[in-house]
Structure formats: C-alpha cells, structure tokens
C-alpha cells in the first residue's frame, strides 16, 4: 500500500459501462463472478473485428502483420500490468485453463515427455488449501492420480480462514507444488503470497498462484511476489470472456511440456515427432483468441488509466461498508475475516433459516444481482456447514448507495420467508 492517498476513482466511471449505466434498475454486485466491460473494451473488440481482422502469427501478409502487431503489443501491456516479462504471459481460454496447463504439463513431464525438472514421483506431495476454488483443486487431484503423488491441504477454520503457520505445518521435504488463491472468492481473505512463495522455494517446491481475484483488484507485481506460476481471467478484470493468462517465470515456461499441442507452437514437425518453440508460443496451440486479446489489452489500459491504487483504495472503502451492511442485519452470519480485518471487497454470508437461492431470488427481485451457491468451493462450504452461501462483490463502479440498497433489502429477507418467527 502506498503512503500517499491515491487519486480517487473518477466520479463518472459508471458512465463508461453500458452494463451499469444502461441498467439503472439493477444493482450489480456480482463482479467477483464476472465483471461488466467498459465501452472502450467492447468497441476495441468490435472495431478490431470490423477493420483489422486477420490471422495472427501465420503467413506474411500485411493484414496478418497488423493483427499480429495488435496481438503482441497487447501482450506487452498485460505483462507490464502484472509485473511480468512479455515472454512470461501465455494466453489461455480462462484461468481454469491456465491452471490445468501447469498441472497437465507436470503430468507430461512425469510421463517422460520433456521438462524432467517438473517430474513428480509417487510419494511426492502437492499442497493446496481447503478454501480453493475447484479450478485450483481438481486439476491437482487429477495430477496426483496421474503421477502417484499425494494431495495434501491446509485446513480452514470455522470462518473459512487459514494462516501461513497452518500452511507451514503442512509443508514437508516432499512438497513439490504449493497452489493457493491470492484472494479467496468466498471469504475475501488475502493470502501472504510473497511469504508463501518463499516458503515453497525453500523446500524446493513450485508455487502456483490463483490470481483470479487479485489481478482485477490490487496492484499486482508477480515478479516481485516471486511466485513461479500464476493464473487469471480477462472476464473478471473488465475484459472479454474467452481469454485468460498463464504467467510463469521465463525459464520455467521454456521447459514445461505443452499439454495442448497443434499449429503455431512448433519449430519442426515430422510424422514421428515435433519440436516446440520457446514460451509463450509453445503453449498457444491453434488460432488464438485474437479479438479477446485486443479486448484485454484495452481493459488493462483502462484500469491503468484509473490507477490500480485508486481501484484498491475505492474497494477497501467498499469492503468495509459491505461488511458493516451484512454484519448489521440480525440473523445474518458473515463468512471470512472478522469485521475490521483486511479483506477484498466481497462478502459471503448465511441467512439463518433461508436458503441462499431464496435469498438471491429475493434480492434479485429488488434488482440486486448477487451470486448464490457454493461458488465452486464445495469443500469450503462443507466446512462452513452449509451447501450454499450468498455473495455480494464490488468493483470500481460500485457505489456506497448500492451497498446501502443491499443492506436494506437484506433486512427484509428473513421476514419475507418467515424465518424470524
């Protein structure tokens, strides 16, 4: 956090988002699932599709040259935005795809398909947390089954939280991978990523950061954090669907076997064998989501224009208001850090006697869009003793009035369903 107070988020920022300004009847509190896009992103995509569209990195035509230029400069900007080198940014379909690319690459290394340094052996350990999103859990479960490695996890407490000491207690000399979310999409807890990366390094394990909920909201410097790999999605950071990023330290990416193979990833191909290019191309098989890359480039330009310090400061304010709003309602139980403690601008909660689906339906009727369900974190919900929670999440375009609207509506939920009788 910078010492100086950052410039606030522009007052008129909402006007930039047709999905916000064009729907004054709706309070959109589901940005942690997927964010709205500014017109600048929507137009960047459409204009590219209309005027500059051509194949990328294939052939030598002028049209291809222009499209390739747009594609590669977007990579430079996205890389700069998260503190990565441009060769350290691989385009993927989404963050899930990025995490799978690491897990499947390690599986291939273990099966002798290259990248010997990544090979896991029976008895090696993969460490995750009980709070992980399924995207950062199931790929590791499957990797364990493919290689005979053991999956271990850091347990969470009654509020869904864990500490670095809890993690340290699970690290062993056989730990080869440590995968964890920078910010939990359910609890909003922020993990000490740099410290964990360094603990992992000490035992010779790779660190893999699920940055889905941090890249959109915090100033992020992956290089400085020192993690080995990281993943995030465009659609949560004002960008398009269908584009995600795998970050990896250059020397690792150049050696990790590409699980998905095909055109544009290779140097020489015979009927028997293929040799792969260095990163990032070795992982970018087939025609890339070029339009979406251009859109993501526009999204990070937009965010950089606002300033991530400003975004973060705005959200820190909203996080406090969200917590107060939820905690002030009788019969509503907040998940995650205690009021007052640091958290991202999201709040998941349990309404006593009312199922999350019903809560969501009630709020929806008031024009408030929230997310209900297990948020792709079943083990965490099982630990919390519920099948589903309701989550409200904010972004740079969210206002205090919207959070007040949530609070007012929440106050009526239990009455409506007769849960207060």
């Amino acid at each position, binding site marked *: 956090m910078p010492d100086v107070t950052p410039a606030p988020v522009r007052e008129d920022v909402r006007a930039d988002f047709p999905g916000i300004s064009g729907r004054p009847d709706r309070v959109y509190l589901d940005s942690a699932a997927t964010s709205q896009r500014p017109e600048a992103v929507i137009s960047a995509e459409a204009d590219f599709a209309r005027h500059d569209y051509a194949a990328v990195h294939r052939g030598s035509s002028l049209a291809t040259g222009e499209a390739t230029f747009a594609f590669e400069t977007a990579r430079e900007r996205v890389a700069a935005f998260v503190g990565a080198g441009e060769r350290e940014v691989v385009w993927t379909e989404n963050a899930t795809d990025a995490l799978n690319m690491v897990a499947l690459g390690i599986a291939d290394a273990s099966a002798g398909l290259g990248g010997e340094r990544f090979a896991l052996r029976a008895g090696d350990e993969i460490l995750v947390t009980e709070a992980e999103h399924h995207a950062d859990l199931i790929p590791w479960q499957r990797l364990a089954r493919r290689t005979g490695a053991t999956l271990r996890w850091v347990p969470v407490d009654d509020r869904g939280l864990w500490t670095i000491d809890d993690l340290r207690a699970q690290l062993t000399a056989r730990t080869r991978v440590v995968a964890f979310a920078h910010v939990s999409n359910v609890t909003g807890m922020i993990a000490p990523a740099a410290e964990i990366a360094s603990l992992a390094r000490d035992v010779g394990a790779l660190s893999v950061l699920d940055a889905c909920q941090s890249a959109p909201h915090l100033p992020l410097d992956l290089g400085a954090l020192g993690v080995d790999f990281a993943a995030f999605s465009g659609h949560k950071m004002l960008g398009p669907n269908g584009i995600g990023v795998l970050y990896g330290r250059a020397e690792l990416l150049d050696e990790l076997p590409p699980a998905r193979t095909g055109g544009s990833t290779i140097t020489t191909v015979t009927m028997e064998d293929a040799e792969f290019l260095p990163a990032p191309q070795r992982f970018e098989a087939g025609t890339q989501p070029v339009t979406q890359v251009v859109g993501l480039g526009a999204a990070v330009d937009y965010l950089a224009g606002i300033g991530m310090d400003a975004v973060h400061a705005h959200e820190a304010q909203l996080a406090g208001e969200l917590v107060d709003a939820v905690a002030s309602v009788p019969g509503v139980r907040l998940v995650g850090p205690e009021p007052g403690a640091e958290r991202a601008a999201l709040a998941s909660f349990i309404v006593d006697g*009312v*199922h*999350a*689906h*019903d809560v969501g*339906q*009630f709020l929806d*009727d008031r024009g408030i869009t929230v997310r*209900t*369900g*297990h948020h792709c974190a*079943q083990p965490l*919900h099982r630990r919390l003793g519920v*099948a*589903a929670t309701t989550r409200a999440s904010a972004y740079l375009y969210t206002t205090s009035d919207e959070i007040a609207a949530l609070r007012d509506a929440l106050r009526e939920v239990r009455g*409506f*369903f*007769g849960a207060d009788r």
Partner: protein
Amino acid sequence: MSADLQSLYQELILDHARDPEGKGDPTALDYTHHELNPSCGDEITVGVSLDDDDAIASIVWDGHGCSISMASASIMTGLLEHATREEALARIDEFRTMLRSRGSIAPSEALGDAAALQGVAKYVMRIKCAMLGWVALEADLRQAG
C-alpha cells in the same frame, strides 16, 4: 415486492417448505434415487414403493435445499401418492413442460397444488430446483418399469 416474486413464493409454497409432507427415511422403500443440483449442492433422495396394480403405495423423501425444491417435493408427494406409474410419469412430464414453457403453458387441473409452482417458469435458473424431487421420482419409476 413484485407480483412475480409474490407468485413465486405463494403462501402455499412457503407453508410446504416450512412443514413438508413425505419427508422421512426413504431407504426402506422399493426404489430410491438420489438427485443433486450441481450449481448449489442441494440434494434429495426420493424413495417409492408400488402396489400390485403398479400404483404408488408410498413416497418418502429426504434432502435439503431451497424453499422451492423442498415445497415442490412436498407437493409432489401429496399429488402422486396413489397415482399409477403411468399417470405419475405423465404428470411429471406435464410439470416439466409447464416449467420450461417460460410461462406460455398453464398447468392443467391434473397438476393440483403443483400449479402453485407455475411462477418458477419465469426464472430459468430455478427450474432445476422445482424439478429436483420430480426427477428423482421419475428415475425411481423408470427403474420400476
């Protein structure tokens, strides 16, 4: 409060949800089936026994979920107990068609209290909730067939 929400959560539905019919231990019955709504983790197990005339002798279910899924299972129990296997399958079909119609198909008399769930048709994401118990019963009846 919108009229849509009022009609979705009619008093009849909220009553059924609070005080459901047929809830118990289904495992002793002839056929049982477990259904899960993957988007929220809600689950139900529905058990059924048939008599010699292929009519439903009893329905018992257990599970947890939102008021729509619980009320719907409860209403289903009252409606289909004593129906023949064929009748019950036809009712389940009709119920599904009504829910999927986005409001264009009104329930027939034969759906009885289940007509109260008509409001669900407006809410695509809740159809699964309303169908949960019915789908489980359908699976039971197909096993029996």
